[in-house]
């Protein structure tokens, strides 16, 4: 239950942060620290996604052919 709550809290935090960004167009000063943490988090997640896409996308996608199943 506690992890669920943490995730919910975190979700709200992300939502609020996004709202702040889109409404004001730039980070609110009071939330500066929180935003920074959020951006850092997102950046490192995107870096991880870069890693899983390391191979040649064009070649990989073209080669992905299966026989039809059920």
């Amino acid at each position, binding site marked *: 239950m506690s992890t669920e709550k*943490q*995730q919910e809290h*975190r*979700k709200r935090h992300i939502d609020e942060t996004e709202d702040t960004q889109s409404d004001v167009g730039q980070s609110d000063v009071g939330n500066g620290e929180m935003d920074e943490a959020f951006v850092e*988090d*997102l950046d490192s*997640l*995107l870096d*991880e*996604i*870069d890693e*899983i*896409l390391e*191979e040649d*996308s*064009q070649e*990989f*996608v*073209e*080669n*992905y*052919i*299966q*026989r*039809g*199943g*059920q």
Partner: protein
Amino acid sequence: MKRRIYGLETEFGIIWTPDGPRKKTLTVQNVVMYLFREIVAGRMYPDVFLENGARFYQDIGCHPEYATPECDDVAELVAHDKAGERIITRLASNAERHMKNDGFHGKISIFKNNLDTPGNTYGCHENYLMERHVDFRQLASQLIPFFVTRQVFTGAGKIKPSHRGYYAISQRAEHIREEISIGTTTARGIINTRDEPHADREKYRRLHVIVGDSNMSEFSTFLKVGTTGIVLRMIEDNFIQQRFALRNPVKAIREISDDITCKHQIELQNGKRLSAVDLQWQYLECAKRYLAQAESDTTTAQIMARWEYVLTCLETDPMQLEREVDWVIKWKWLQTYLAKRGYDWDSPQVKHLDLKYHNVRQEESLYYTLERRAEVERIVRDTQIQHAEHFPPERTRAKFRGKFIKKVNEGKILCGVNWSYIQLYEPYQILYLSTDPFKPEFDEASRTIYSI
């Protein structure tokens, strides 16, 4: 609610990517043979039951397929479905080692989705043990509108070229051609008529559902099977009085899939127009009335709460479900990644990342990257999944099957196993039948097997 037997069958997509200087290629068939090598133990055909009671085999079109053991609880089913992903992942790592020894260097990718690049499809089939007395026509007419519309929270998301609308909710919708059909490889129906209960046929039928997408999200799997189980119970008890008959269900399933705002209205036979979410609300309201007079249990209460939550979100803004529902999670992260990295929607990177969402090998997977960072909601704990990899459910016939398999594997005893029977060959020559999947032990068989 009364107990029911549930099961999920997943056909995985599989591809081998060679590396190293020589880049030796291999056919899918060969890769699948390597995958099965350590568990087939001299059998002619790759088709085995495992110690957790599940079946793992090669299905039509060379797809490795994992069929969960019989579960009587939906959360437990989610754990067993996830256990299947982990088992195939482990087999893939071992297969790569064997292949390397044989001079084939590279990587196996395994996808839990329903489409390859040219658009061939493979399935995730749900199985529900049902009471035989229900009139099939009535069953079909009350289920079709439900199956057409539930994709708003069960869809796995399908990317489309920008000129064709970017994104659709469901991977399977476009491959559904009939309302009712026996076919699973062509002319697939919203309702499939295959009826092999693997149980007492007088009491039970099996509802074999082929219309759904494969889900990565535990939340989507939980709701997909959970809501369907509740709707079936209402049908069995003849509780649904409303008529939701659709003018053209096959057209409707595609139209709903094509509208990610979830606002599109489909036409009913009586001329009214309703959105998928409207129709789901009606099923939910009916279920609330039904459950008010039935015995409740924790899992059913959790399903109901989550069902209401997703419909509330879908009604205002589907994108609120960015942690719960597969098609929304994937859409969110495809968008975010492309925007940050400056890729075009029609670029190969989008298609690649779409596939990666469904990769079950965790270090290669977009879904599991998100899970690791707590960006998606869970239904079960990792320890439950680990347990399900090795142990069968406790309250169904799978319990005995699992224990039996463990024993014969250890003793290298020759036997034949299927969902509803276990056969010991020479020198025992005994056949044990089980026509009651709710019964976890075969008394007589237990005595024999534990005396061996």
